[in-house]
């Protein structure tokens, strides 16, 4: 299945070893979108590199930006003010819903259901409108700065988010009616691409794929960052770890994110939005690893600074790249038609895989 | 008058496509010509006021057997077979067989003293209207006087089905 294949999300080439219809083995050839982001980081100042982070996982740009900024703040031993932390949480959760919506639309389209795609994009449009009003950009937002926020929340921010959350609940029910009880959908997804908990841990898979296999691990609970410790929400966990469970887990996650946003809007603390951070950042020499829960899984930033303006080394742990390794295990023994469904269910973005 | 036109039309197509079928190098082309030949014979059945047979020929022969043939032609990868020569060297044997057959039929007509032309007139077009509806008569006789052969035919088909399945099963 060539690089420009209609169903691989982006430029991923999969070499399948087939015995008739059954897949015996598979090999993913990546690197078509490799831009050498990590090498570029070595001769960019810390602020200059922030926009590059958005271009990696272009579907969830806000959360990768959050990860980078918090990692540098850890390096500078600087604490972002409470108001900016809450706004950051709201925007990241909205981004999680948007990313899951895009996943649901394209995944359903691969399996043949035409309508969910348009419903999901209608909702995603609302979220992107909020991003645009807040920071001018819809996709690669570069909404956060090291040490806090660049822009104050625009005046109708709370009302917009509240309106979105209010009618989003009925929307999710709409998707569920279309797909969850649908015999053909169950037929196409139940028991397809099974990943047992042991395999999931062994492959280092994170995010919804890991939770669908039954492992209850979410960084927002394990190591709370931004303002997650102030809100109550549960972590949905699957049982068999097949495509249907991953679908259920992601749908539940969308609901939980909506709850977080609702709780966060009630009391956004007032106060400054930017910590005392100088124009030129010269973090003390040292290294830091900071991971956050991106929609696709755990995105980690390992930053080494040698005291100068530019980082000595920045390495990013992309969740899609590592989830992709489990692809071969999941695809074994399935038919060619299922390969498409499995690629969809891991929810990979090639920009992040190739960096 | 119409019948004569129709008959010569269908007979022409049948003969032409039969000849083409036998002579074509590419098996797919010969399969297509066989389909045209079968359709032409179906036309002749229609011209002989045998509609039921016309539609059975189309459904069963063309829609069933020929689909099977085209399937098998597709499965058997043909680029290898195309290179090999398609025609056995027994051209002379074939010619001899054809002459023998023609001679035999000629003998039959010669001894019976009637040239094919004077055969009994089959049926005038007008009389065709009062013919009993064809499919009912075929059905009635099929289930009344020929019930046993009907059952035997179904057993035969069953045996053929099992045979084909066993034969084509993957011997892994």
């Amino acid at each position, binding site marked *: 299945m060539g690089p420009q294949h209609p169903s691989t999300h982006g430029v991923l080439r999969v070499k399948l070893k087939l015995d008739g219809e059954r897949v015996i083995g598979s090999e993913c050839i990546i690197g078509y979108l490799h831009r050498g982001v990590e090498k570029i980081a070595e001769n960019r100042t810390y602020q200059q590199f922030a926009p590059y982070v958005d271009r990696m996982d272009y579907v969830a740009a806000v959360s990768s930006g959050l990860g980078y900024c918090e990692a540098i703040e850890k390096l500078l031993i600087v604490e972002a003010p409470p108001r900016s932390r809450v706004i950051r949480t709201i925007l990241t959760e909205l981004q999680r819903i948007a990313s899951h919506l895009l996943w649901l639309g394209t995944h359903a389209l691969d399996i043949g259901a035409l309508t969910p795609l348009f419903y999901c994009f209608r909702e995603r449009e609302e979220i992107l409108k909020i991003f645009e009003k807040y920071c001018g950009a819809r996709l690669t937002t570069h909404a956060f700065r090291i040490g806090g926020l660049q822009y104050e929340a625009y005046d109708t921010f709370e009302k917009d988010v509240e309106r979105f959350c209010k009618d989003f609940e009925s929307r999710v029910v709409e998707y569920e009616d279309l797909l969850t009880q649908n015999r053909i959908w169950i037929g196409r997804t139940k028991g397809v691409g099974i990943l047992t908990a042991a395999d999931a841990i062994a492959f280092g898979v994170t995010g919804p794929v890991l939770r669908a296999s039954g492992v209850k691990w979410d960084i927002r609970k394990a190591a709370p960052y931004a303002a997650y410790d102030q809100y109550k929400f549960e972590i949905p966990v699957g049982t068999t770890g097949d495509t249907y469970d991953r679908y259920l887990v992601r749908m539940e996650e969308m609901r939980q994110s909506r709850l977080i946003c609702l709780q966060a809007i009630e009391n956004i603390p007032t106060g400054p939005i930017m910590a005392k951070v100088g124009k030129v950042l010269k973090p003390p020499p040292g290294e830091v690893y900071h991971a956050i829960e991106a929609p696709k899984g755990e995105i980690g930033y390992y930053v080494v600074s040698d005291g100068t303006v530019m980082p000595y080394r920045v390495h990013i742990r992309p969740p899609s790249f590592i989830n992709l390794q489990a692809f071969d295990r999941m695809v074994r023994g399935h038919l060619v038609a299922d390969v498409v469904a499995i690629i969809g269910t891991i929810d990979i973005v090639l920009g992040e895989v190739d960096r | 008058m119409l019948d004569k036109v129709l008959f010569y039309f269908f007979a022409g197509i049948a003969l032409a496509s039969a000849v083409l079928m*036998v002579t074509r190098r590419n098996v797919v082309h010969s399969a297509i010509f066989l389909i045209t030949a079968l359709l032409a014979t179906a036309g002749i059945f229609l011209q002989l006021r045998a509609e039921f047979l016309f539609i059975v020929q189309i459904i069963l022969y063309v829609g069933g057997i020929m689909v*099977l043939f085209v399937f098998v032609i597709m499965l058997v990868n043909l680029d290898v077979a195309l290179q090999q020569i398609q025609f056995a060297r027994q051209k002379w044997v074939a010619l001899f067989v054809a002459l023998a057959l023609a001679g035999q039929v000629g003998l039959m007509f010669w001894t019976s003293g009637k040239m094919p032309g004077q055969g009994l007139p089959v049926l005038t077009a007008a009389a065709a209207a009062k013919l009993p509806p064809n499919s009912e008569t075929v059905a009635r006789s099929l289930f009344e006087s*020929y019930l046993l052969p009907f059952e035997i035919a179904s057993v035969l088909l069953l045996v053929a089905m099992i045979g084909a399945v066993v034969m084509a099963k993957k011997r892994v």
Partner: protein
Amino acid sequence: MLPIGHYLFLSLALFIIGVVGVVTRRNVIVVLMSIELILNAVNINLVAFSRLYGDVAGQVFALFIIADAAAEAAVGLGIIIAFFRNRETVLADEMDLLKW
């Protein structure tokens, strides 16, 4: 309508072409197809005579011939597929071993 001779000539011609096909062609599939052609020639005769005598038995018998042709084609093609899978060839000349 038409003297019966026309139909006899037509079915004879088809019959001869079928036999020539069976004899000259090396590709087994075309041989099978020619057999179908021969069966068809027989059918024309049957229907012509059944129309001549007004008795529908001829058409019923033609029906049985079509059923039999279907059975024969199914088994024949099954054999060809099985043979092709083992010997990668479809030509009659290379089917010269009884057991390999």
